[in-house]
């Protein structure tokens, strides 16, 4: 409680803060838990089954672009990371390899931009 109430922003009490945190956690959990627990049957509809199978890829596509271009400290370094990531992924490298490769390329590009160019 002491630790929580230490230097709180104006107008915020420790009790209020705890209430916010509890509500936030509860809502987030229920959103995840209810459909996951309640939904049991295998879906028969061919369209719906295909739809649900495609959802993860569509979600990731929409999350990645254009977000990836703003994921580093500058757009050029993000583009360098994206290119290396796409090439490595195209060669079917592992998740970790692609992630590290993209990150390394972005770092290298940023260093070049900052210290050399």
């Amino acid at each position: 409680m002491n630790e929580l109430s230490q230097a709180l922003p104006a107008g915020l009490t420790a009790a209020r803060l705890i209430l916010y945190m509890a509500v936030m956690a509860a809502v987030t959990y229920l959103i995840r838990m209810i459909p996951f627990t309640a939904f049991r049957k295998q879906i028969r509809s061919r369209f719906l089954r295909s739809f649900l199978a495609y959802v993860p890829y569509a979600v990731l596509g929409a999350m990645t672009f254009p977000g990836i271009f703003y994921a580093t400290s500058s757009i050029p370094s993000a583009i360098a990371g994206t290119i290396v990531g796409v090439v490595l992924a195209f060669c079917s490298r592992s998740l970790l390899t692609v992630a590290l490769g993209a990150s390394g390329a972005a770092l290298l590009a940023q260093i070049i931009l900052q210290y050399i160019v």
Partner: protein
Amino acid sequence: MKNQVYSFREGVRDGLPIGLGYLSVSFGFGIAVVAAGLSPLVAALISMTNETSAGQLAGLGVIVSCGPLIEMILTQLVINIRYSLMGISLTQRLDDSFTTPWRLLLSFSITDEIFAVASTKRERVGTHYFSGLCTLPYVGWTLGTVLGAVAGTLLPPIISGALGIMLYGMFLAIIIPPAKKQRGVLVAVLAAITLSCLFRYLPLFDFLSDGFALIISAVLGAALAAWLFPAEDDARDTETTAGEVTEHE
């Protein structure tokens, strides 16, 4: 179910890049919490009870502005409702080991990345694999938040900047290989990307929150692909019901 196709160990291995990515993303959240005038303990508690980036950041905004509780509820609902959709999609890829207690427990760990990795495994996943998959991301998310809150300013920005692209690199590794082989996946991905870019860059769509833009892009992209290429997942499911276990990766 006695034999699960994937082990806890395999889950942990697949969770490693997610955990590393989370470490860097949650670092930023830790910094934001302290910058807002709250303690590192608050930052850690929020991360440990939510494990969701966009939702936490928006929630922090409500806390700092002392907004009404209904605003907190609606914000979380809008941003995180995608987890409901992912949860339903994921139920179609689970084996019999997912009994109610396991679902109550593991549903907490449905994040974009965990969902993506778990639901794109070739065979149905069990509780061993899923628990393993969730472990390092949870540790990374919590640890990163604490580190960010305590020592956020110590890491050179050039390093933290480059770490920010890790999660996206992982996404590329998940979507590109199947998109090369299955036209349905390719269509779903390209359609979703197109919509997501339109929502982002056309001023017309400025009113859409990031959470809603993501849901609409994903739903329309997947629906288009399902309409054009409806049978893609049949082969995979037939194999699974026949109990045929094929080694892959």
